[in-house]
């Protein structure tokens, strides 16, 4: 088993929370993991990405080679497109459809959606809305993780367990709402894949 994932977003959007959940799940199941993160300058509202590699064999490179990522998981639609050179021919793109517009020349949303719709394998989801409907706008990233879950080659329950462990210190309510977000995202992906 081996899966290479690009997590994408804008500095401040908290993509590392997604990485933490997947990473926790992987490590607790005895898998090897490497997770290259972006720290420093780009965290100030620039584009950020994380290379997440999971395997049942030793992993060498911290970076995913071009054309080899199985998944791009993005919390922002333009950022999903930025990493297409890394995506394999059979890879999936899972992305939020809510733009994060902090630059003066942000492209027309229709143009972004046009590019995304050209992709052969994608899940485009309004995670913000789904999270809001669940009464927890801050759980949008978990909705996206849920949408990616059918493609993770990991048992779904493992992810729920990881969330339970990750948010345990914040109380059962927070755990529940994040698991609900995960489920909602997963359901959407199952219907739309």
């Amino acid at each position: 088993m081996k899966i290479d994932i690009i997590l994408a977003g804008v500095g401040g959007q908290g993509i590392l929370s997604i990485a933490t959940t997947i990473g926790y799940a992987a490590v607790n199941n005895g898998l090897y993991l490497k997770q290259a993160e972006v720290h420093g300058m780009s965290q100030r509202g620039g584009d950020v990405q994380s290379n997440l590699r999971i395997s049942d064999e030793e992993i060498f490179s911290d970076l995913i080679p071009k054309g080899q990522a199985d998944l791009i998981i993005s919390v922002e639609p333009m950022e999903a497109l930025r990493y297409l050179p890394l995506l394999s021919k059979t890879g999936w793109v899972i992305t939020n459809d809510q733009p994060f517009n902090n630059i003066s020349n942000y492209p027309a949303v229709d143009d972004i959606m046009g590019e995304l719709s050209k992709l052969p394998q994608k899940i485009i989801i309004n995670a913000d809305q789904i999270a809001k409907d669940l009464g927890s706008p801050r759980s949008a990233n978990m909705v996206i993780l849920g949408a990616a879950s059918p493609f993770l080659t990991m048992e779904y329950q493992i992810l729920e367990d990881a969330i339970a462990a990750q948010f345990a210190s914040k109380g059962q309510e927070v755990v529940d709402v994040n698991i609900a977000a995960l489920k909602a995202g997963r359901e959407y992906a199952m219907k739309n894949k």
Partner: protein
Amino acid sequence: MQKLLLLGDEAIAQAAIDAGISGIYAYPGTPSTEITEYIQKSKEAAEKNIHRTWAANEKTALETAIGMSYAGKRAMASMKHVGLNVAADPFMNVAITGANGGLVIVVADDPSMHSSQNEQDSRTFGRFSMIPIFEPSNQQEAYDMTRYAFNFSEQYQIPVIVRITTRLAHSRSGVTMAKKQEENKLQMPKNLRQYVLLPAIARKQYNELIEKQVHFEEESENSIYNKFIEGSDKSMGIIASGIAYNYLMENYPDRKCPYPIIKLSQYPIPRKMIKKLYDMCDSIMVMEEGYPIIEELLRGILDDGKTIKGRLDGSLPRAGELDPNSVAKALGFKRYEGNPVPEVVKQRPPALCVGCSHIDSYNALNEAIKKYGEGRVFADIGCYTLGALPPFNAINSCVDMGASITMAKGAANAGLVPAVAVIGDSTFTHSGMTSLLDAIIDKTPITVLILDNSTTGMTGGQDSHGFGRIEDICLGLGVEREHLHIIKPLRKNHEENVALIADELAYDGVSVIIPTRECIQTLNRRMRQKFKAKAE
């Protein structure tokens, strides 16, 4: 033993704790910051009362670590690559004094300059000072080699370098810990003149350092971190140092590279091992994350030996970090390289946060200086360097920490009046105070803006030495009371701030203006914590 998911930086930090350090000394700098932060957050470090507060700069950090080593305890100094320039004086000289308690200097290089002004390779400094370098290739080695480095340092009474690069610093993986070691007892150096570098003593100790080189090389030849891996295809031999080894192996999914390989992680360079490879193979490929140091040495001045491939002949890119793809190309593999980035995708450079005080400072400065024309603002390193980008286009330099004030002074000396310096509070206490003193002594007509957001913003909001002290420091240095102003950078104060800056620009002497308002990130963080505390 326990396995933890750690960044390369954190693996080094945990290793330092487990090796029994009594102090970590550092100034923040990407990609090294998380080493110290990990120790600051560690319960164990708190219980043992390991020294872990930030230093004013890398020079003070290293000197303090040297002092702790003198007293027989283990110390770590950590910094980013350009930080070692600031600490270069103690660094070069501690190679001559040698160490007493284990002294490990961690330097994190930033090839591709993700968050830096250059991509200098600290292995050059290792050669320069003639001390051993350990260059781990993964997180587990980062842990293991840091432990090893402390032992090595004490065994040979020599400071050593652990050199990492951005990818290892900021990538996480599972790390297994080894048995913990107690802290050393207070113990003075056997020879109380060891650290007295008077010429007569220095000459003697320098000779000893030279004599130690044989032993260091011998250690490199036999180190478990330098591996000679046999291969059947002798048309080429490969030397892969540090994390370059990972990119090499990534290209052989079955982990069987046909060529003989030297996996190199400990310096000085093991010459015998290299000679064996060289004699055995028709050509050599050198893969290094950083400068082509081994490659240049292997080529020599005349470069008239066997064919050497690497960064100098274009087999690998001359600059920037390596990656699996550039290494694949060097090995002659043709790989699918994905689809191009669609044209709609726009660059998203980092930017000042919404609500950042620097925005209001720049808006006021831009307006006040407009009538003098462009090109007069010397800035420094920090979040405020983003003032170079639109919409501000406010600054004309960012060279090294502290240079804003001295460059403004030099330009003013040359006749560029008014000249302005813009410097952050943490950068000011790092290296700006002496610059300001130069200007005061000369009464050079410059206007200095010390942007005081009460924190070291760019690197994630570490405590700033100048907190609550900037004004007193300026007065102490000799800034005239009438030309020292604290202003509040807020939109509602814009007109007032413009007028004040304009007045000081016209003053024929040193003026200091301190726009003071807390960083919006640290403010939000504080508020969240307060809120959380209340809720609990």
